[in-house]
C-alpha cells in the first residue's frame, strides 16, 4: 500500500493529467451544450500538454540554454517536449477556432446550441424531405 502511495507521490503528474483527461472527456460526453463540449475538449488537450511538459522535467533542471557551460555539466530540462507542445497548442487553438466558428453557424441555422434539440430538428428535416 505504501508502495503505491509512494509511487503516486513521485508520479503525481500522472494523477493530475489523468484526472484532467477524465474531466474533459466527461464534459464532452455529458454536456449537451456545444460550447461546453468544446471546453471539455480544451481541458482534454490541456491534460496532454501538462503530461508532455512533465515528462521533460528533470530534477533541479535549468532552462536548456547553452551559455558557456558544457551541457554535460549542468542538469537542464528536455526542450523537445516543450517544442512539441508549442505545435500542439497551435493545433489546439485552431481546432477551437474552427469549432467556435461552426457553433456560430449552427446557432444561426438551428437557433439553438443544445445537441438534443439539434438532433430533433435534424430528424424532422429528414422526415420532411423524405
Amino acid at each position, binding site marked *: 500500500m505504501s508502495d503505491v502511495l509512494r509511487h503516486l507521490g513521485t508520479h503525481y503528474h500522472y494523477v493530475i493529467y489523468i484526472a484532467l483527461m477524465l474531466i474533459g472527456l466527461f464534459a464532452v*460526453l*455529458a454536456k449537451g451544450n456545444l460550447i461546453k*463540449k468544446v471546453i471539455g475538449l480544451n481541458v482534454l488537450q490541456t491534460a496532454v500538454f501538462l503530461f508532455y511538459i512533465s515528462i521533460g522535467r528533470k530534477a533541479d533542471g535549468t532552462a536548456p540554454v547553452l551559455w558557456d557551460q558544457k551541457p554535460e555539466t549542468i542538469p537542464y530540462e528536455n526542450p523537445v517536449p516543450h517544442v512539441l507542445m508549442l505545435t500542439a497548442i497551435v493545433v489546439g487553438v485552431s481546432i477551437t477556432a474552427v469549432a467556435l466558428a461552426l457553433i456560430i453557424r449552427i446557432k444561426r441555422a438551428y437557433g439553438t446550441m443544445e445537441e438534443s434539440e439539434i438532433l430533433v430538428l435534424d430528424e424532422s428535416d429528414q422526415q420532411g424531405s423524405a
Partner: protein
Amino acid sequence: MPSFPPALVLSLGALLIPFLRGPLRKLYLLALPIVSFAALLATPQGSSFDYEAFGHTLTLMQVDKTSLLFGYVFHFAAFVGVLYALHVKDTTQQVSAVIYAGMALGAVFAGDLITFWLFWEGLAFSSVFLILARRQADSNRAAMHYLLVQIVSGLLLLVGIALYMHGHDGATAMARLTPSGSGHSIFNLDWAGPGVWLIFLGLGIKCAWPLLHSWVTVGYPAATATGAVFLSAFTTKCAVYALVRLFPGTEELIWIGVGMAGFPIFYAVIENDLRRVLCYSMINQIGFMVVGVGIGTELALNGAMAHAFCDIIFKGLLFMTMGAVLFRTGRMNGSDLGGLHRTMPWTAAFCAIGAASISAFPLFSAFISKSLIMIAAAREGYHLVWLVLLFAAAGVLEHAGIKIPFFAFFAHDSGLRPKEAPRNMLAAMAISGLACIGLGSFPDLLYRHLPYAIPDYALPYTWPHVIQQTQLLVWSALAVGTLMLLRFYPPELRSVNLDADWWYRKATRAFVAFGQGPLMRIFGWLSKAVHETIPTGLRYFARNPGGAVRLAFDRVALGWAGLFRGMPAVDAAQERLREDQARFAETTPGAAWPISTTVLYTAVVFLVFLLVVLA
C-alpha cells in the same frame, strides 16, 4: 487451324454482337457456335491452355472424353438456342445468352478448380439477364431470387475450393474422373474436409437438390420465351458434369437423386404453369443423373452422362415448344390453353416428339440413356432405388408426356387461334426433334462418345427391355386416361375435350406453397426461415442495430417481469416497451448517433484496450 478455347470464342465473340445490325447480326449469331465447335474439334485431347494469374496456373482447356461429350451437346444447345431466338431483337438477351453458353463451355473444359469457379460465377451472372430481359416487376423479383441463390452457390464453392487448397498444399487440379463403384461416402472421401463439403453443397445448389431447388422453379418460368431454352440447357447440367468429375460413386448422391426423381413429380402434377411443370420435370430427370453419379460404376456414369446429353436436347425441345406457345399466345397456364393443335400443328407435333423422348418410349432418346442408369442400379442391388426410379419413370409420362402436350395443344378448346410458330423456331424445334429420334434409334451415335464401353447386357434394344418399357408407359397412360374417364368426365365421350381439365382449372387462381402435413410443415418452416424470417429479421435489425438490441434486451427482461403482472411499475414498463416497439418501425434507418454516443463507445473501447494491455 490454331485451336482456341471455345469458351473464349463465344464469350469474346458475344461482345461484338452489339456492333452488328440486321441480317449480318443474325448470320454472326449463327456462325459463333459453329466457329466455336470447329475450335473444339481442332483441339487435341488432353491439351491445355495455361494462364498465370494471381499466383496460380489457370488451365482453361482440358479435353477428355467426359468434357468433350458435354462440349458437343452444349454446342448443339447453343446453336439450336440461337436459331430459336433468331427473331429476337433485344441485344441484352443475345449477348448474355451467348456469353452464358460460353461460360458453360468454360466450366466444362476447366482444368482446375479456380478456373471452374470463375466460369461457374460467369454462368450465374450472364444467365440472370435472360430473366431480367422480361422487364417486369415480378420477373425482376424472380431474377433477384435466382441471382442470390446463385451467388450463395458460388461463394460456397469458392470457400470450399480455398479450404481444399489450404488442406492440399495449394493443389487446384480438378480431380480426375475415377469410376470406383459405390460405397464412397462424403464422410470418408480420401480428400475429405470442410472444403469438400462446401464444394458438394455449392454444386448441389446448382444441381437443384431437394430444398435447394427453388431458384429453378422460380427463375426459369419467369424467363423470356427464348431465355428459358438457354437456361434449361446449361446451369444444372454443368453441375451434373462437376458431380461426375468430382464426386463419382459418392453414396449420399444416390439418396439425394432418389429424392429428386421421386418428389418433384407430385408438384408437377398439380402445377398449372406449364413451364414450371417442365422445371419440376427437369429436377426429376436430373435426379436420375445424380443417382447414376452416386452409383458410380462405369455403366452408371455412362448412364448419367448419356442422360444429361439426351435431356439437354429433349428438355430444350419441350421448352422451345412451350416458348412458342408463350410467344404466340402470351399465356402459359394449362387452364388458359388448349386446342392449339388446330393452328399450331407443327409445334404440337414437335411437342409430342419431346414428350415421347422424355417419357423414354422406344426409338426416342431417353429410352437409350435412362435404361443405363436403371440397369446400373439394379446390378448393384439397389432395390428400393430401382423401384422409386421406375415409379418416377412412370410419373414422367404422366406430367411431361401427357400433361404438357395434352393441356397445351389438345384438351378443351380455349378458343385461342394463334399463328404457327415463326420459321426459325420451327427449324430449331425440327433439328432437336430429329436429334431426339436419331439418338433414340441409333444409340451407337451417342454410345461411342461415352467415356466407357457399353456392355452387352446394357444395350437398350432387346425384346424384354422394349416390351417392358412399352408396357410400363402404355399402362401408365391407361391409368391417366382411366382416371379422367372415371372421375372427371361425363358419360358422353364427345365432351372429353371440353371438361377434361376442371381440376387443373381450379388451380388457375392458385399456386403451390408449402403448408400442412408433417412433412410439408417442416418444408414450409425451412422455406419460411430462408425466404422470410431471416431477411425480415436482418432488415429489422439493420434499421437501427443499437435500438434492436436494446428492444430485445428489454423484451427478455420484461418477459421475466411478466411474473409480476399487475404491479403498476411492471405494467407501465410493458406499456413503454410496446410503444418503443411501435415507434421502432418508423426509425430512420441508421439514424445519426449523438456525439455523446460515439464518445461513450470510444471511452468503452479504450477502457477495454487498457485492460487488455495492462492486464
